[in-house]
């Protein structure tokens, strides 16, 4: 299947969102708002919940399912205050020794005037740096689009998983084609070249696991994918929570340290 078919499925407006997974997988979800600095960014959701009795912090980049909701959620494109809300809740998780589980679905961080004024670059950078050394287990799952730095800002975690039809890339195939070939229409060709599908990224060692979807995408049988994901999260958390902090941090460092292909 051409990689661009995954892009189409990943972008479907009917595709289950972060809150769909959060509400299905966890109990006692209490949503927590705001970055304590500027405002509450509705493109990022977060809070505390229980995974089969274990208290966890959950975060998600949230798209809408209607035009109205998408306007409210800014089409799942966070501003700096969204990343700072996530950062606040991750520090809170560390304080209370809660594992962190992130659901990522964004075409990218919002490219806007206010976003630049309030330091979009700084907000993403800070998350990368802090997440590298959070003293609690962390797992992220790309559930739709994993767009560039805006997705990575929640994905510096012990484990990175992808749903079968999700994509994860340095930028959109359209952006890639227009930068390199000055022709956004060559997006399909770009998508094949870029290695953005879950199976390509598993082969490259960028992710650890693929969560299956039914034919045509997980919107056709949400329960199937969500239940599968829940079982895998429970099993993986047990493994990660058994590790002492030094081991956890060393393995996380080594995970990202290993990325890079060069000659010397």
């Amino acid at each position, binding site marked *: 299947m051409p990689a661009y078919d995954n892009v*189409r499925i990943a*972008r*479907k*407006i*009917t595709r289950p969102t972060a809150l769909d997974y959060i509400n299905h997988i966890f109990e006692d979800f209490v949503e927590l708002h705001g970055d304590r600095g500027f405002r509450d960014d509705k493109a990022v959701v977060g809070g505390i919940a229980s995974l089969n009795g274990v208290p966890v912090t959950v975060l998600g980049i949230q798209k809408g399912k*209607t*035009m*109205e909701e*998408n306007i409210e959620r800014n089409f799942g494109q966070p501003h700096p205050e969204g990343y700072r809300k996530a950062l606040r809740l991750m520090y809170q998780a560390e304080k209370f020794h809660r594992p962190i589980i992130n659901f990522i679905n964004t075409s990218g*961080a*919002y*490219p*806007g*005037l206010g*976003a*630049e*004024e*309030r*330091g*979009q*670059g*700084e907000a*993403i*950078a*800070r998350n*990368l*740096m802090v997440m*590298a*050394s959070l003293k609690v287990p962390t797992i992220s799952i790309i559930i739709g689009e994993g767009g*560039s*730095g805006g997705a*990575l*800002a929640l994905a*510096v975690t012990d484990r990175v998983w992808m749903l079968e039809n999700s994509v*994860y*890339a*340095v*930028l959109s195939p359209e952006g*890639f084609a227009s*930068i*390199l070939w*000055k022709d*956004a*229409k060559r997006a399909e060709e770009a998508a094949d*070249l*870029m*290695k*953005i599908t879950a199976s390509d*990224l598993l082969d*490259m060692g*960028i992710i650890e696991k693929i969560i299956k979807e039914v034919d045509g995408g997980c919107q056709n049988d949400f329960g199937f994918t969500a239940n599968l994901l829940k079982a895998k999260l429970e099993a993986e958390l047990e493994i990660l929570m058994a590790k002492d902090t030094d081991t956890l941090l060393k393995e996380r*460092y080594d995970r*990202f*340290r290993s*990325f*890079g*292909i*060069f*000659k*010397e």
Partner: protein
Amino acid sequence: MKLFDNIKDNLDKISVDTLKERAEAIKNAIPKPSPAKNKNENKKDKKEDIPADSVKCPSCNKIIEKKALGKLKICPECGRLFRMNAKDRIKAIADKDSFKEMDINMEADNPLDFPDYSAKIKGLQEKTGLKDAVKTGICTIGGYECAIGVMDSGFMMGSMGSVVGEKLTRIFEYGTEHKIPVVIFTCSGGARMQEGIVSLMQMAKVSAAAAKHSEAGQLYVTVLTDPTTGGVTASFAMLGDIILAEPKTLVGFAGRRVIEQTIKQKLPDEFQTSEFLLEHGFVDAIVEREKLPDVLATILKLHNCKKEVED
């Protein structure tokens, strides 16, 4: 309001994909002039009336002899800062003969098997004398020892692929191990597209190494130079304990054109300059190019950094 609601109801029924496709179809249906061709013609014209040993200053439009820019590459007419390559920058910042380069032979591979990438790298290596877009090593500044990384916009716009990520990670690790500060001069168009997701991962890799260096109590200073954008801004450029910038430097995350297309308004000239970042609280100080060695030496001194003693 009624009218808007009607439109909205209809919008709910069609997917974003369809909307995007429609927008794309409309865009494609509009005939456009070929800007690429025009640009080339302009370039050619300009080249013809500027002698080979001169450049036209983009600020004052005067034709300046390259020699007249001096070691610091400053327009003698208006003071505009021209971009400096890594070699000239190191000469201007490090104490004489103190720079010892590391990882001299590291060069790009081709993680995506991207067509023509290897050939492009080879061509640029021959043209620039660089292996990739950053030089790293150790040096002293005003007698104070530090690990230093200097990016070079002359090599694929300073874009960050595996080589840039690995070399910078190594100087952070060196700094952590030897308890010395790290100084990085940034200039970059962002991620190296040809390396795809691997280039994105470099942002995390370098940031993780910077975190360890920081946890070890060591100082990290960034100097933002023109242009610092994209994935470099969204990682190590913004992570310095102290962030300095040269005057009138372009610093931002998203590209100006992308933002203008997204918000459908024209951005002010001062948008994404170092002065704009200073005003909004993202830069500690703007430092004139000629003062950078002294300012860096003072910062290192105030952090009790090791002073190399000449025998």
